[in-house]
């Protein structure tokens, strides 16, 4: 098998994939780390961005084939006339916490409290969803716009703000410093993160992208079956956990990639269109693409 690989090396297609550090990217990093991508005869060029705006700019500039994004991101791409299709799901959780000295121990107590979020993103969508699931309304909390997650963590840590809604590794960090867990996206049945490709890439590199998902699923299988100690360093690097946390990191089981449920997507579209981020008539078919076909 090895020989075959080297032989076909010459026409190996490159998938340029943009992402930001989070737990979602663990399978992707493992794909490269364990050379699963070689096996499926494509090269995965992972590009790390520190801000979603930069990532979107690069994506639109044609510098990337695909990205890890979310329902809301897809809606905005579509609205901007940039045809990006959801091709799979990824796993990551978003955790709603209260600062340690706020005295809040339950989500029912958060009325009137301030929370640092980014606007018009899946974070806001997630927050609204969590609020709704718990019988609260958007207006019940005071939303403060703080675009960078590390800054939000700092505000929470230093009690400048009452609540935070954060992905890993920030959530773990906050919790380890006695922040109080109130709810999570996954608890509310929300898995908003997806992997997506531009229609151009899907047409041009169809085979490679199909292989990409095969490789993804293989990486997921590996992750779910292997003890974390074997790939902890990779996780620390990819997700950006502080080095000190080595040995204490937990990773939830990953799901193999499929297309997301239609009702989930439509719910997100509904939310986005209510915010004016996309047209309400965006359909499930428009925003998804089944690579296995």
């Amino acid at each position, binding site marked *: 098998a090895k020989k075959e690989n080297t032989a076909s090396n010459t026409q190996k297609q490159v998938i340029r994939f943009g992402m930001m550090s989070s737990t979602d990217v663990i399978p992707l990093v493992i794909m490269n780390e364990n050379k699963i991508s070689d096996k499926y005869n494509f090269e995965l060029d992972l590009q790390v961005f520190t801000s*979603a*705006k930069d990532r*979107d*700019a690069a994506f*639109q*500039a044609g510098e990337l084939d695909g990205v890890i994004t979310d329902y809301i991101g897809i809606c*905005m*791409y579509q*609205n*901007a*006339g*940039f045809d990006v299709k959801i091709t799979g799901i990824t796993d990551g959780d978003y955790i709603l916490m209260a600062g340690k000295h706020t005295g809040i121990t339950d989500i029912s107590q958060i009325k009137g409290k301030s929370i640092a979020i*980014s*606007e*018009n*993103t899946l974070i806001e969508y997630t927050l609204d969803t969590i609020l709704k699931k718990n019988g609260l309304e958007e207006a019940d909390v005071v939303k*403060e*716009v*703080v*675009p*960078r997650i*590390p*800054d939000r963590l*700092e*505000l929470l840590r*230093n009690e*400048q703000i009452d609540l935070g809604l954060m992905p890993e590794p920030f959530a773990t960090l906050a919790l380890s410093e006695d922040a109080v867990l109130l709810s999570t996206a996954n608890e509310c049945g929300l898995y908003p993160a997806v992997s997506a490709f531009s229609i151009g890439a899907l047409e041009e590199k169809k085979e490679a992208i199909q292989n990409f998902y095969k490789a993804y699923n293989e990486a997921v299988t590996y992750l779910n079956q292997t003890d974390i100690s074997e790939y902890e360093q990779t996780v620390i690097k990819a997700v950006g956990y502080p080095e000190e946390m080595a040995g204490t990191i937990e990773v939830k089981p990953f799901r193999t990639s499929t297309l997301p449920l239609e009702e989930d997507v439509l719910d997100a579209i509904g939310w986005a269109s209510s915010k004016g*981020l996309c047209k309400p008539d965006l359909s499930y078919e428009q925003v998804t693409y089944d690579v296995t076909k």
Partner: protein
Amino acid sequence: MKKLLQQLYLFIQGFLLIHLFWYFCYLFLKTTVIPSPILVYQNFSKVVESQIFLHILYSLKRIAVGVFLSLLVGIPLGILMGYSKKANKILYPLVYFSYPIPKTALLPIAMLLWGMRDGSKIVIIFLIIVFQVIIAVRDSVKNIDSSLYLVTISAGASKIEIVRHVTLPAILPELLTSLRVSIGTAVSVLFFVEGYGTRYGMGYYIVDAWSRIDYIGMYQGIIIISIVGFILFASMDLLAEKLCVWK
């Protein structure tokens, strides 16, 4: 009055030129990143609806306070560094070390110390500009022709009086240049500092549009910021002419 008309004429001319350039870019590059200027203007009513004047006012306030503080601190420090060897010995390394620190990286500290509102925003603007002012003032103080001091010094002027009668007028042209550059920088920095903790400001307007990938809105914001910037610069020019009558 004639001056104003002339400025207006230049304004319109520059406006048209840039838009022509933009239109050509749009035609030749054909990408969603560059929308047609026509489209942008067709939707301009939205801008007016969105309380754009409030946005402008908020931004102007932040710029004004930030620039004012930088001048308040930067001019005396720059003059001190230009004249006093002792002060220079202490301040020079401090300034040279602190200047290259990316002030935006100090945002977490600024937020914790001065809150998420205008406090930290103004501090960041201040920190970015003040070093430019210090350096420009120090350098121009050093470039003053020493023969200009003779009469003032021999008439027994105190240090303050020398600064008032010789130094300040002598560096005024460079100071105005530095002010122009500073204001330009401050306007650009808006984009960064208005990205958090506010829902008003031209910077916020652009960032918000960008993060929604609403390029039309973003360009509208850029147009607004350009016009405001132009007006600021043009007023600086008029001010310079008023202040430097002796030229």
